[in-house]
């Protein structure tokens, strides 16, 4: 009978994860079940890669290693580009089940009680893989965590609270690779530990990860309407990540899910959040995939969810990345052309070239100033970083002082030996909520700093570029950065900088420090002379003496409790401020590197233009004529690259779409030969 229920057949986490290579019964989900290939037209990423190649070809004529290395970086950024979607929500709302149903494999451990403890990232790979990523060495904030492959059977041992795997404490996250069409476009789904209100330690880790995500799926279920704490988390998430989507799970089980859905939509719009909620049922989805039932797949809500992820979010994010790359390509072309034009001018009119050489010399000086320590943007950055550190730390200290004060007030109202079991979670909660708010402040202020630095750099950069006769050169390249606020389509560089905010010790250390109070108990401390004594001793001792003794010991317990509180808050503040400093240092370094590199490109282009102009003046008439021909040719070669770069963030023509479709169908042929079993 159990097997008759698709619900009943879901094994609990104790069962090893099903081999993700094959769908049940070997049947492959149909295209309608939401796992078909993305439309076969050229993606933004493909177009951007093509544009990089075109630009590489265009600039190859001049010996500019800076351009070459810049292009390598851009190519790498495009290749590794992904759309990271954090799946967040409270405990037991079906986050892991949601991901499993999406990729149709038991990759995220699901259990009725044991919760996910480590983030599990599910991404595309040609073969199923599973690996753990360890925390990087805390001493070296450049280091990347070590990666180790693990067998699928150990997934739940590493990813859940059911401890037991070796080195589990050092694991930062688990990474699963699956051959799924849904993931092919770079979509990475990250299952996170449940947040239990803004106060639970796991929340701090999740909030810290928010800025690095491209989108957030907030999971709630149909058992009840959104709670106050869920709404609060949503607001926080919204402030730190521009794309937040709501999913309501378990609609198969709760008959009144439509009422809940409507109530939730009202809650969202009342709070100024986008009211779209996708109602989803994992059992229906699984059933639909197993039985290849298209209409059931639609009913399960997963058709819409897949559409959202694959056809809305992933392309949006890819477009933003590609757009950022296109802007940088345009800048390279601008510089390249400016250099050629300067040379051409000198070649064509040697009489006036002395002037233009002087002009170029001045431009070069200016460009060098932009690169140097005295540049305005450098000041903005240095001062901004100092202010940022000071303000964020001040905020943290103010919060911790207030926390200690409140805690001491509380301790004085009762007997720590008795209320400790309640006091302890309260303290953890308060401290976590403080850390989360501090993180939010850090994020907001960093974003503002990025924008300010960008603005100052751009202003000066534009001035230099104008001298090089580059028409409105920076308009494209930093359109996003110059905006004081985040736009959903922010350039990829920006999002990278912001993800640097994520502390290296971040999540785990924070969680462990925040929760480490749990190991402090009052066992063995000055215990109550206990009302037990009321029985025997009172009569002998006299009530007054007894009461005095009782008070003395109570005072002692209170003093001890206060000491514990202070030690704990000190630990939290120390770690949080170290995290803050590390994060800010990373942001600082990334911003500086980025702008210094751009300033250097500008400087070297000016220098090259200058020396080309000087050479032109010195060269023989015949040599000049020959060189002129070459330069004109080189200039001509840039126009295809221009076109390619300009088309990157323009959606493909509809005609290309229809033409491409048959190709995609062939590429994902459903025959068992063309496709490994279940590689949906």
């Amino acid at each position, binding site marked *: 009978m159990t097997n008759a229920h698709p619900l009943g057949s879901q094994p609990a986490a104790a069962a090893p994860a099903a081999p993700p290579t094959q769908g049940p019964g070997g049947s492959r989900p149909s295209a309608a079940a939401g796992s078909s290939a993305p439309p076969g037209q050229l993606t933004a990423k493909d177009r951007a890669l093509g544009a990089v190649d075109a630009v590489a070809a265009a600039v190859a004529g001049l010996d500019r290693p800076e351009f070459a290395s810049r292009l390598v970086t851009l190519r790498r950024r495009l290749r590794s580009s992904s759309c990271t979607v954090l799946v967040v929500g409270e*405990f037991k709302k079906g986050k892991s089940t949601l991901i499993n149903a999406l990729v149709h494999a038991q990759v995220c451990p699901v259990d009725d009680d044991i919760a996910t403890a480590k983030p599990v990232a599910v991404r595309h790979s040609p073969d199923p893989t599973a690996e753990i990523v360890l925390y990087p060495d805390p001493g070296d904030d450049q280091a990347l965590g070590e990666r180790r492959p693990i067998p699928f059977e150990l997934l739940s041992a590493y990813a859940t609270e059911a401890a037991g795997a070796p080195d589990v404490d050092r694991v930062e996250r688990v990474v699963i690779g699956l051959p799924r069409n849904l993931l092919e476009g770079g979509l990475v789904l990250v299952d996170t530990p449940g947040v239990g209100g803004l106060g639970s330690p796991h929340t701090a880790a999740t909030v810290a990860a928010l800025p690095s995500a491209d989108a957030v799926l907030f999971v709630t279920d149909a058992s009840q309407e959104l709670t106050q704490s869920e709404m609060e988390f949503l607001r926080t998430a919204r402030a730190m990540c521009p794309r937040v989507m709501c999913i309501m799970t378990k609609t198969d089980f709760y008959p009144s899910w439509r009422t809940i859905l409507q109530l939730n939509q009202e809650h969202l719009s009342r709070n100024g959040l986008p009211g779209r909620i996708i109602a989803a049922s994992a059992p229906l989805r699984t059933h639909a995939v197993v039985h290849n039932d298209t209409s059931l797949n639609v009913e399960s809500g997963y058709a819409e969810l897949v559409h959202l992820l694959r056809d809305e979010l992933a392309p949006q994010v890819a477009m933003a990345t590609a757009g950022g790359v296109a802007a940088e390509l345009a800048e390279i072309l601008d510089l390249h052309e400016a250099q050629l034009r300067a040379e051409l001018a000198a070649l064509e009119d040697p009489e006036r070239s002395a002037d233009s050489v002087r002009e170029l010399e001045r431009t070069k000086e200016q460009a060098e100033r932009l690169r140097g320590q005295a540049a305005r943007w450098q000041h903005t950055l240095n001062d901004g970083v100092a202010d940022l550190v000071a303000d964020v730390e001040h905020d943290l200290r103010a919060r911790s002082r207030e926390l200690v004060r409140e805690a001491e007030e509380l301790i004085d109202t009762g007997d720590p030996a008795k209320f400790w079991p309640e006091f302890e979670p309260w303290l953890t909660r308060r401290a976590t909520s403080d850390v989360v708010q501090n993180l939010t402040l850090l994020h907001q202020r960093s974003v503002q700093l990025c924008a300010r630095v960008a603005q100052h750099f751009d202003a000066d950069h534009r001035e230099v570029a104008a001298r090089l006769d580059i028409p409105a050169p920076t308009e494209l390249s930093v359109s996003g950065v110059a905006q004081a606020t985040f736009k959903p389509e922010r350039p990829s560089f920006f999002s990278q900088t912001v993800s640097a905010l994520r502390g290296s010790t971040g999540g785990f250390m924070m969680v462990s420090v925040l929760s480490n109070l749990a190991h402090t108990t009052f066992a063995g401390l000055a*215990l109550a002379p206990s009302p037990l004594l009321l029985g025997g001793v009172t009569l002998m001792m006299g009530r007054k003496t007894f009461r005095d003794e009782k008070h003395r010991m109570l005072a002692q317990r209170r003093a001890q409790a206060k000491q514990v509180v202070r030690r704990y808050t000190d630990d939290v503040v120390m770690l949080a401020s170290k995290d803050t400093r590390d994060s800010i240092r990373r942001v600082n370094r990334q911003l500086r590197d980025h702008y210094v590199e751009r300033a250097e490109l500008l400087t070297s282009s000016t220098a090259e233009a200058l020396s080309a102009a000087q050479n032109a003046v010195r060269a023989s008439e015949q040599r000049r004529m020959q060189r002129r021909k070459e330069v004109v040719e080189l200039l001509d070669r840039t126009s295809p690259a221009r076109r390619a770069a300009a088309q990157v963030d323009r959606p493909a023509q509809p005609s290309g779409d229809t033409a491409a479709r048959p190709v995609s169908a062939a590429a994902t042929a459903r025959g068992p030969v063309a496709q490994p079993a279940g590689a949906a």
Partner: protein
Amino acid sequence: MTQGGRSALLSRVLELLAEAAAVYQGTAAAPVVDELIGRLHEPLRVAIAGRVKAGKSTLLNALVGEELAPTDAGECTRIVTWYRHGLTYRVTLVPRQGRAHQVPFARDDGAVDVELGEYTPDEVASLSIEWPSMALEPMTLIDTPGIGSITTDVSARSLAFLTPDEDEQPTPSDAVIYLLRHVHAADVQFLEAFADEHVTPFPVNAVAVLSRADEMGVGRLDALASAAQIADRYRGDPRLRALVQDVVPVAGLLAQAGYTLRETEFRQLRNLSQLPPEVLEALELSADRFVSTSAADLGLAGTPAEGLLPPSHERRNLLERLGLFGVRVSVEALSSGRVATSSQLAAELRAQSGIDRLRKLLFSHFAERRDTLKARSALVAVERLLALHPLPAGRPLTARLEQLRASAHELAELRLVNYLRGGALSLSDGERTEAEQLLASGTSVYQRLGIPDDASADEVRKALVATLNRWRTRGENPMSSLADREASAILVRTCEGLFASLVG
């Protein structure tokens, strides 16, 4: 056993109260004393606490075995409501100001719908519903409004300490059932249920119910096994240990259906269970499909099985009454042949729901300790009375009270149980378990000593002597803290009491 000793305590308290009644006769405090005396003769008072929507009213209905409390948000759930046994159906309204009086009521689809008249819910202190029900004879149930909205404010002011100061307050109820929801231990809401201002916590007679247990596995047939596991984990949590005696998973809807299952519903379920398995699977896929799938959708049109499918509105009713999980459990029990009749199905639902275990806990464990608790509450109340209304004639009463409190071993035991659960003593886990077992009045001497039920009298005596000596040695250890030594002394006395009851 200690039965004699216990009633001795209660009768001594009654004597004390009689004296107090004589002292305060004719004064303003006289009704208070009368009430205290009346309380000692009442059945067990059980309060149900927890958040709104945690399933309090459903659980209350399951305990009464009737759909008395309105299960959706009605007026009654906003007011503390007492459900007592009575000879007639009667509802009494106790306003915050003014005299208690009877009010008219109607039964709306089973639930009692009270007309408050000119009072708003805020002006009503409590409602008392008297109902001739067998289930209410041994206990009075108190339905509390619960905590309305989640407090998001995590500042100090919102934190009221829940662990009681045991010698300071009287308890208006003899036992408390806290409804817990399934949340993570680190969750802000973990102890939410205990912040209920309507009940005075007293851990010795408190039990936590993991409510909505049928939802733990989102309707899988093994959901209740999962719920049992979760309850096990909760039971081990030191915070809960300090607040309640036990954690029991209960599927309220299942229990309620188990007590109120109608013959027509049984017939519909039996018909459903006779449908072919693949049809059932399609039908039970989701709540939506269960209600709206037609015979034609299922390919049943024109087949003999068509008649077995209840019409849509009947299926909707089944879903409302049992939930998807209840329907699955019933259909599975019927089709596997484990149950055949309506009463068997009802019993199966009750057994699966966990309600039986809760009842057992309430009636054996708590009822046994009730006398001690009542005595304790009465003593606290008398002490308060004496402090508030000091009379020269009351002086000897104060002395008697002090003497009674100091000499009553049961009260010392009660305090020790609280201390043990709070983890305040530096005993090892093994010692603590042993001590708790030993103090668990209401269980057999075998259980208290942790020996098999079929042990001979000689074996019992041997085990008892061994236990007694162990605690005596523990108590004489000069390295032990004062509190530990005192605890040991209490346990030694408990052993001596057991010994006396064996010999006597």
